[in-house]
């Protein structure tokens, strides 16, 4: 409504956020939160098993250093930049929601920033002083201590951001009192954190196990010890992860179903919910089996056996984030703002005046026979474009043709009849916000897409047209 709208008409806007966010989670959980304690633990193991006249087992220490180097390079480049990227992409695609979240969570994010800075300083110290610290036992033990500090700070960054994620799904009582603390301690927070923690450890172990095959390929002794220790690490965390996953899985519906108005919503949810259960079981048990073999017959483990569970874990984390995204629909901030970025409480006004009148950027605010298609395009941009495209992934014509038959011309009256009721059947859809005329214009625009095959450009290429009603000139006259 109030921002020029960036729009990717083929790939779909959600795709951009999803790619950046999932990449970030895979790196953050796997190579930071779960990996640092794993590495520090292995570094410590090297000191414990050192030959009597030495500080550490230097061959082992160098091997662990190489694993850390991978994590260091990836987390301080792709990891850091995808973290910033989530913000950048959210600012483009979902400006109203991220703008609102920032107002609520300013201090949480500010503290998060201080933790970030500490984390970066610690990782720089931990990695860059590794070799120098090998001069005395005292400095080596101090180095290991830095490793533990770093692990704690990595975990805190995750703990803070999960509060915000949990909030987006279920703001708890925030809708009543709008305070930061009620927002942070929303009902999903602890179960989600409890789940992410051991899972990150698990993923860190799986990555570490995989890396061992790159750096110790030729050294059987090193590889065997590494497989055994990594497997022990995984065996420790896997049951916790499994338990926490089911706990989270159990609290979800209770919190989510409250948001869903009908039994049908539960059915759409159920589909995802069931798939998630299978994915949890398959991913974690495949890792468990691998780890069991790793502990008892470490030399039998081959690289391909590790790569497969590694991909299961990718799928698992990806699926988990997908479900998290799905179940918060039709809202972007539960109960407060719909995924079309319109606030729930402004709906009565839109119903009365229409949305075009209140849109800052639109070609017109008065719909006539002549400008119907143009106005319909504006309505599409304002109410559908955050999730639907005109001719690409999840396109608006596709969703209607799936219902009314592919290749058949759409019937404007049916489309217009369906839209106002869709949120009752498809509970992940927000209700249509506009008035009758806008509905009609939208239906005509959708039908026109079927024949024109036009793609709708976003503000990044087409720019914006200022709605004259909401220009400085006209507003001043109203004042």
């Amino acid at each position, binding site marked *: 409504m109030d921002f020029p709208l960036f729009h990717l008409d083929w790939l779909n806007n959600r795709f951009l956020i999803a790619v950046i966010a999932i990449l970030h989670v895979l790196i953050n959980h796997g190579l930071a939160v779960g990996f640092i304690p794993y590495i520090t633990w292995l570094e410590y193991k090297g000191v414990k098993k050192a030959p009597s006249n030495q500080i550490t087992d230097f061959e082992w220490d160098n091997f662990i250093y190489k694993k850390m180097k991978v994590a260091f390079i990836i987390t301080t480049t792709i990891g850091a930049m995808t973290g910033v990227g989530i913000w950048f992409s959210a*600012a*483009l695609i979902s400006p109203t929601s991220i703008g*609102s979240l920032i107002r609520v969570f300013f201090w949480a994010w500010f503290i998060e920033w201080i933790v970030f800075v500490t984390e*970066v300083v610690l990782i720089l110290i931990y990695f860059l002083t590794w070799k120098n610290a090998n001069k005395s036992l005292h400095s080596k033990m101090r180095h290991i201590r830095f490793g533990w500090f770093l692990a704690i700070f990595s975990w805190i960054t995750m703990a803070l951001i999960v509060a915000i994620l949990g909030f987006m799904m279920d703001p708890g009582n925030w809708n009543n009192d709008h305070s930061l603390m009620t927002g942070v301690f929303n009902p999903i927070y602890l179960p989600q954190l409890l789940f992410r923690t051991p899972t990150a450890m698990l993923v860190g172990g799986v990555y570490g196990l995989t890396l061992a095959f790159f750096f110790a390929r030729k050294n059987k002794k090193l590889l065997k010890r590494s497989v055994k220790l990594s497997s022990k690490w995984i065996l420790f965390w896997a049951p916790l992860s499994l338990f926490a996953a089911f706990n989270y899985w159990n609290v979800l519906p209770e919190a989510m179903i409250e948001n869903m108005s009908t039994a049908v919503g539960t059915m759409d949810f159920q589909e995802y919910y069931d798939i998630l259960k299978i994915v949890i079981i398959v991913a974690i048990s495949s890792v468990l089996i691998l780890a069991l073999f790793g502990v008892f017959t470490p030399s039998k483990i081959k690289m391909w056996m590790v790569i497969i569970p590694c991909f299961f874990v990718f799928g698992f984390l990806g699926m988990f984030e997908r479900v998290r995204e799905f179940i918060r629909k039709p809202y972007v901030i539960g109960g407060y703002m719909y995924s079309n970025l319109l606030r729930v409480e402004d709906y009565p*006004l839109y119903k009365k005046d229409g949305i075009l009148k209140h849109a800052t950027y639109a070609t017109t605010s008065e719909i006539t026979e002549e400008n119907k298609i143009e106005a319909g395009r504006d309505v599409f941009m304002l109410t559908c474009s955050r999730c639907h495209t005109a001719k690409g992934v999840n396109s608006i014509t596709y969703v209607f043709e799936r219902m009314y038959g592919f290749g058949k011309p759409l019937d404007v009256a049916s489309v217009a009849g369906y839209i106002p009721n869709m949120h*009752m059947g498809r509970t992940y859809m927000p209700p249509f916000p506009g008035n009758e005329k806008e509905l009609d214009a939208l239906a005509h625009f959708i039908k026109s897409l079927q024949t024109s095959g036009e793609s709708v450009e976003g503000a990044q290429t087409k*720019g914006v047209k200022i709605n004259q009603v909401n220009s400085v000139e006209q507003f001043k006259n109203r004042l």
Partner: protein
Amino acid sequence: MIFKVSTPIPKDIPLELPLPEWLLVTLLIVAFLAHIIFINLMLGGSIITLWAQIKGLKNKEYDTFAHEVAKTITVNKSMAVVLGVAPLLCINTLYTIYFYSANALTGFAWILIIPLVTVSFLLTYLHKYTWDALAESRRVHIGIIAAATGIFLFIPLIFLTNVNLMMFPEKWGTVRGFIDALLLPNVFPRYFEFLGACITITGVFLVGYHKRKRYRVEEKYTTLTRDEIIKLGYNIAFIGLGLQILFGIIVVFTLPSKGYGYDVLLSVILAGAMLVVAAFYTWKSMVASPKNRIYYGKIVTFVLIYLLIYGGSRQMYRHNALNKHQSLVVAKTKEFQKLSEDARLHPVVETVEADTTLGEFALGEALFKKNCSSCHKEKEKLVGPPMTEMVSIYKDDQEGLKAWIKAPGKKRPDYPQMPAFGSLTDQEREELAKFILNINSK
């Protein structure tokens, strides 16, 4: 009048600022300063590394110097990114609609920052960790840092374009993509001034870096001495200061008048004076004998004061430029909230227009048209089954049909799930069921 483009007044996010505005502004200036110093060091360091390494093709000592500088880039870049989060947070909070609007209007370039910076970071690591491995193919190795520097040089243009565009809502309607916004006045003079600052800060940093007693120059270099490297640092800083003063003057004259004021002019002149003083001491350090290069503390102080005043002047300009527009936005937001509240208190009541000629089925027919007809037809399947089929199932069971409408199940695997019509009253469902079941006798 057709070509007239007007200024939009968007509504603001209707939530309170989480902290007083003055505090937010202070945080923004201070946090941005910390961020930009590391950005200066990262970009300036890459430029100096590239230069020194090319020079190092002939003189091995400069290759060593380049290596020493290169090691600082990867550290400074990590600090630069993480320190950038706070000013980003502050500017997002303080200027939500202005900043996000600029972001969207330059969308592709804005999001390109992420992959571009990632690639350049990876290149700096590649450059650092292949220093010995690529000893024999120096040109390839130099190519790596050249590519990284090239990207580093481009990124600030995207940021500057955004912080510039956000100050000119009257231009938002005219901008078509990043290039348009880049070409607005004010971007390039500020960009070159910024490049000068990168060189200055890096030069000053290199002096301090090599002054440290703990830093063993003798172990790393064969012919270059500590003093020669320090002098080189001063030379670099002096070049940077010269560029800054030159482009600073251009900025003073090219700054669009919109946000200008005596406050801005005064602080820009004051900032410029700091640069001149810093340049003077740098020059004195350059020409002094090794023992008499004693002005380092003064140079650092004046450069820091300059940065602070400059940061402040930019905030003043932004404030002057947006001030009026912001109060209109506040008024607009209030107006909208009032309208929204009124509409909540007096919502539109939806009425169903019945065709009275249909007698006792009139209301049912109207309800059907409104709620059911997009999926159900009389005799053929549309999305759901035709009405005739409903009649065959519920012929003697009107209550059953009513119950289904209220909470439908899913019977047919090849049909999509029917929505529940919980919003209809019992009376309305009654009328609807009556109409459906009598469709054959109509």
